[in-house]
């Protein structure tokens, strides 16, 4: 009899058991995510495309600057002209929600890991696994639990987006100069005050890199999730691939680049700006 290690043999029953016993919980999670996604998508798609472009460009211009406004206009304009407006908006909604949840999980854990070496040691192998396992492997249990659609896609995306944010959060907080933290203690600041007024501003540049990585990797994953029926640009890419339609594949690919540029520059600009304004 050949020797074979098969963790799947253990994991599959676990997933089944989870499915059988926690169906209610998963159903609620599923419904909440669907609702939020649906609301964002509906908001983005209810207005005419040109109006959305104008509003977003205006917001980018007011919040960040002229260059960001032009960039937003161009990226969204391309998506519209490529005939992929609806798919692009779906993708933006998916990535937005996934990144929000990833950051909400990774940021506090990252701070904790920066403070407690033991927690970091415990997290490191988990993060390594999360990052190196081919991403579509996550899709299998996610689909088994949440069935096809956007929810498993977003769960897999969150799992994929957490490690870079967490690692860079830890790095960012480790990198806060010791004397600044000491200053906070020496002037009698509450630890919470030290966190908000000293550590986070000092960690901001590295945190922004983390956020940026989180967004770009999430976007890559969301596209992959087109395989499980998540819709959006991923679905267009999948369609182009399965039908061997070069034109569709290329258009969808470039639209993904446009969305990536948009999300990256806007998030960076907004946070940079806020960090700078807090100082004035």
């Amino acid at each position, binding site marked *: 009899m050949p020797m074979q290690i098969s963790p799947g043999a253990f994991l599959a029953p676990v997933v089944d058991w989870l499915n059988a016993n926690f169906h209610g919980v998963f159903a609620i999670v599923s419904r909440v995510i669907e609702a939020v996604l649906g609301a964002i998508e509906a908001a983005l798609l209810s207005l005419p495309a040109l109006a959305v472009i104008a509003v977003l460009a205006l917001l980018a211009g007011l919040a960040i600057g002229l260059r960001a406004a032009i960039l937003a206009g161009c990226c969204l304009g391309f998506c519209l002209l490529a005939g992929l407006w609806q798919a692009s908006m779906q993708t933006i909604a998916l990535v937005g929600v996934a990144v929000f949840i990833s950051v909400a999980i990774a940021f506090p854990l990252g701070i904790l890991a920066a403070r407690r070496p033991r927690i970091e040691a415990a997290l490191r192998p988990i993060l390594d696994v999360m990052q190196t396992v081919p991403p579509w492997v996550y899709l299998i249990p996610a689909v088994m639990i949440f069935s096809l659609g956007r929810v498993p896609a977003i769960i897999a995306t969150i799992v994929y987006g957490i490690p870079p944010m967490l690692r860079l959060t830890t790095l960012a907080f480790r990198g806060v100069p010791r004397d600044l933290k000491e200053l906070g203690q020496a002037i009698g600041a509450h630890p919470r005050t030290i966190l908000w*007024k000293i550590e986070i501003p000092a960690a901001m540049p590295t945190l922004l890199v983390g956020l940026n990585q989180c967004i770009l990797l999430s976007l890559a994953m969301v596209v992959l999730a087109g395989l499980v029926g998540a819709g959006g640009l991923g679905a267009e890419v999948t369609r182009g691939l399965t039908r061997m339609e070069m034109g569709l594949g290329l258009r969808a690919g470039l639209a993904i680049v446009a969305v990536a540029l948009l999300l990256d520059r806007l998030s960076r600009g907004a946070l940079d700006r806020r960090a700078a304004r807090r*100082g004035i």
Partner: protein
Amino acid sequence: MGIDMTNAASTEVLIDCRNLWKVFGDRSKEAIASITQRGLSKTQILQEFNCVVGVSDASLKVHRGEIFCIMGLSGSGKSTLIRLLNKLITPSLGTVFVKGRDISGLDGPELRRMRARHIGMVFQSVALLPQRTVLENAAFGLEVQGIPREQRNEAARAALAKVGLSDWTARYPSELSGGMQQRVGLARALTADPEIILMDEPFSALDPLIRRQLQDEFRQLTKDLGKSAVFITHDLDEAIRIGDRIAIMKDGAIIQVGTAEEIVMNPADQYVADFVAGISRLHLVKAHSLMQPAEAWRATTEGRDMTHLPRCTTEADIDTLIACITEGDHDAVAVEDDGRIVGVITVRDLLRGVRGEAAEASGPSPAENAA
């Protein structure tokens, strides 16, 4: 002038630390136990427990209005010691009383209040927040205490004016030179109006000219405002320039405490002696430690008349004495106290003083003579 300021230090003790120890390492508890029970040395602790002794059995008192310098080379434990005073580092053993309260007994909020109100701190690295303006940096201590903006900015402006930075309030730290940044650091400590300021090698990274200027300003400001300060330095010249009293640290222990003159004239051991060897005595050594008793002088000179000699006070330094003697054509100067001549300093005594030797051991001490 320096003398009057020294005497201005009152007898009220603001910081009193007794037998402080700090041992770093995983087995510091065991190490401390064996220090108290078996009296192990620093090297034995390192060998046996792999623990580093940062501060060993340090005791000191800082009085109100006094500038107390702690001088030691890197690794002597001076930075650790100063952090024990506001409990940035918790001592392994021993107690610190600040204004009569044992700070080891303070809980979190009490300790924060103590640091915020009574103990300011200035760092070698300055530790300014780069994304805040000079004014906001100076007001930061009050900001974290929740003082309203108007009020804290007013206090910060006043503090910045004291250090001569009124025109720079809207600038960012990166726009300032090193010396100016350190002034902001000092202003930040002054804004909260604490009684005690801990200075952790604040001027070490500055170039010599600026350093000297800041030393003088710091001393002047501290005395004007009636603050007390603990000042860490690795530079004996700086300690002498600034400190009313100086503690010399080596290997975590305080090996001598005294005024600059006491330390220069009577070094406790060879280590201190080597340290003070290069120090100019001109402004340090005072007439009272150089003079020989008037009677002794009269005996050796067969009753020469002292009234023709130039006069000086007991606190005149060597530089003044040399000026006194060389102005006229004299070979000695009379030292008077309360209008009475208490001693005489000859050219020979002066030369010995320049070399760092006290009055000749054969004669009675100035104190006995005065009595």
